[in-house]
């Protein structure tokens, strides 16, 4: 049970760290975050179904593709509402989310699709436990990517620029940082991370236009638990969500259905009891 929860939290971290980046650096709560994940998942599916590319090998291409789509979205829409009231920003990304989801339905129908990679059913034993190879791979890759994002933010010039902009937009621009380019980069990166998480979903679950919303909501739950804009707390918050879901699935009768509600309950509780987040 613990193993399941931990493995799942790897994917959750990757799926939500991008949203935390967007909230933390740009201050945009992106309701369309999961839609970029969904687009990434379709990219993974089509590359696999048409050219036999393994979803893991498709990560560079998929991430670049989604980065491009994300940047385009930023330039054409998000950029215009940076100074608008928070609610307009939220409603705009909400509109983008509905748009992308239905675009996917029009293009690829609402039917779920499954990419069956050769090692899908392969199991690996980890000491006394047995886990699926895809789950383990996804966890490893997701954790590596999330941690390297932390490294980028902590060590590199562009990472420092992002943190500077996040702290004080005006101050950063006075220091010669091109705020707009940093924003563009942060948004593109945020969507690319979501897209990568999407690619990895194709390894273990089916792909449909409707998965985006679910992951948007789960990512919300995670960044609310971590505290809005707190990028470092995402990993712990993902663990909280992953473990509580696994707990409900194993110990509550008909837990599979109830687990769907866990993250909503977590959001509600955290917002009502400790709105600044658990890890802040």
């Amino acid at each position, binding site marked *: 049970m613990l193993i399941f929860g931990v493995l799942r939290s790897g994917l959750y971290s990757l799926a939500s760290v991008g949203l935390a980046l967007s909230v933390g650096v740009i201050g945009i709560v992106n309701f369309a975050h999961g839609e970029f994940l969904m687009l990434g998942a379709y990219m993974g599916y089509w590359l696999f179904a048409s050219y036999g590319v393994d979803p893991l090998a498709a990560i560079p291409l998929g991430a670049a593709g989604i980065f491009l789509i994300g940047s385009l979205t930023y330039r054409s829409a998000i950029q215009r509402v940076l100074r608008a009231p928070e609610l307009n920003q939220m*409603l*705009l990304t909400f509109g983008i989310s*509905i*748009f992308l989801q*239905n675009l996917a339905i029009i293009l690829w*129908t609402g039917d779920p699709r499954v990419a069956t990679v050769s090692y899908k059913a392969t199991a690996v034993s980890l000491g006394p436990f047995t886990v699926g190879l895809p789950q383990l791979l996804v966890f490893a890759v997701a954790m590596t990517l999330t941690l390297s994002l932390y490294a980028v933010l902590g060590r590199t010039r562009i990472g420092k620029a992002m943190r500077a902009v996040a702290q004080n937009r005006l101050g950063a621009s006075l220091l010669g940082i091109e705020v707009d380019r940093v924003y563009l980069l942060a948004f593109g990166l945020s969507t690319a991370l979501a897209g990568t998480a999407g690619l990895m979903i194709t390894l273990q679950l089916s792909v449909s236009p409707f998965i985006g919303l679910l992951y948007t909501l789960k990512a919300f739950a995670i960044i609310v638990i971590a505290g*809005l804009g707190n990028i470092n707390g995402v990993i712990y918050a993902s663990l909280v969500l992953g473990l509580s879901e696994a707990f409900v699935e194993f110990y509550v009768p008909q837990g599979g*259905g109830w687990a769907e509600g866990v993250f909503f309950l977590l959001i*509600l509780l955290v917002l009502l009891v400790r709105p600044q987040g658990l890890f802040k």
Partner: protein
Amino acid sequence: MSGRQAVQVLALAVVLVAAVAFPFWANRTQPYYLQIAINIISFAILALSWDMLARTGQLSLAHAAFYGLGAYTSALVTTRMGLPIFLGMLLGSLVAVVVAAGLGMLTLRLRGIYFAIGTLAFSETLRVVTNQLRFTGGATGLVVPPLLGGQRVPQYLLILAVLLLAVVVSWMVNRSRWHFAFTAIRTNEAVAGAMGVDVVRFKVLAFMISAFFAGITGAYYAHVFLFISPIEVYSLAVSVGALVAPIFGGLYTTAGPILGAVVLRVGEEILRSTVQRGYPIIYGLILALVILYMPRGLIGVWASVKSGLATGRKETREPAGP
């Protein structure tokens, strides 16, 4: 009464007469139109009631929760306890109101995005719970007895009456001292409180009024379409529709949400007959475009067209929109 007011009153009267006469014509020639009209009116009530809550600055994503509570309460008390349908509908909206008061109290401290996420979480939690419980029929849903013997014309007139009630309430809110209280809270809650506006009371009241209409519309839906399931009545699409229509039509007005609802639903119907799937794309597109290019909605566009025509003529206009 000035000439312009007389024209407005006359136009309203014509619309009202046409709306009342419509079913008698449609029922004989185009029964499908009657169905669509019922849909549009229900949608307009949801939009208007959502807007009344938004006037206090609370942009809720929980409208589906009250819609669903109304639908399920009424369905359950009429099928399981054999209560008359009208009583069921009343109970349904009452439950929605009581729950809204509770949710309103709980979310008082939440602002903006936190409020939106919190209300969404509440609505989805209700969906999951209804999905899992046995006595609500679970994921399979419930079969519901028909309202007014399933006759479409009286059903239509009933929902039209509910819309009229909503219009009257909305109009009264916008004409009374409440209007100032709502606007003050929306613009700056702290200042409103300091000026002596009872912020808690008005925010919760707005929630309750809003939920009453959402609840009764949900109950009506159940007894007209005779079948409900959690995924349908607690659907995010209900909350989204209730929010897009006012934004499209013009926020914080009485006519705006109704106008938005009518245009959106008619557009959706046309789109539905041309593209088979994915037609809700129109909601996303309109929402994004309206936010980017016409923040005051259709009403705002109308007002600026009118003032464009009236330049040169001395006239004091009433400021429309937010």
